[in-house]
């Protein structure tokens, strides 16, 4: 299978998913990946990590599926479903075909943190085996949205 490069969806610091305070992500139950602790000021634009179809779009999370079937999940913060979309603005619709790097959601990570929730953003290669995914950014480093994060091949 051709290697698929997954871009960082938000600007922030790369975090190991095992550090994410949610068992679904930390244990890789839906797939392997990395997480990004978004920058409070510049982390508010979430972009498509790959080119493909938006198969799921919630205010706080989305899934983009490549034409070969591989799909990447981006979750903006933990337990943010509880916010009911407040503070999140979507800029696309389910079914849209988008190019990687397109802004899909704008939000305010600092406000999520002020509300007592984690703003960390898991980026998951859905249903991939752990050895299919390699990191292109190191844990603890800063990435800009649109920079390479993972390779899935």
């Amino acid at each position: 299978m051709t290697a698929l490069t997954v871009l960082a969806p938000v600007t922030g610091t790369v975090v190991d998913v095992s550090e994410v305070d949610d068992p679904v992500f930390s244990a890789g139950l839906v797939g392997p990946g990395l997480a990004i602790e978004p920058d409070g000021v510049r982390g508010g634009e979430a972009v498509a990590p790959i080119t493909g179809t938006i198969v799921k779009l919630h205010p706080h999370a989305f899934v983009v599926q490549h034409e070969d079937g591989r799909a990447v999940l981006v979750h903006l913060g933990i337990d943010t479903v509880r916010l009911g979309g407040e503070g999140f603005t979507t800029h696309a619709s389910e079914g849209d075909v988008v190019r990687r790097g397109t802004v899909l959601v704008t939000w305010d990570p600092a406000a999520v943190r002020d509300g007592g929730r984690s703003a960390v953003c898991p980026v998951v290669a859905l249903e991939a085996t752990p050895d299919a995914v390699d990191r292109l950014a190191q844990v603890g480093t800063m990435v800009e949205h649109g920079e390479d994060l993972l390779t899935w091949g």
Partner: protein
Amino acid sequence: MSKAQQILDALGGDDNIVDLEPCITRLRVEVEDPAKVNDAGLTAAGAIAVVRSGIAIQVIVGPEADTLASDIEDLR
């Protein structure tokens, strides 16, 4: 039996469900009595995992959570 029906049954049936909402990869369920939830039944129905915290049960099902939740709602 449909997957939705199997999950509904393993959650203890309609009467045991206080609230059920999907979130991308999981069903977040609040139940009346957690003892009536059958973890083995949920995994047999295709759940990847079950995460419990008191009356809050998370059934990890993958990206089909939205579809499953609406199928379950239709059965209730």
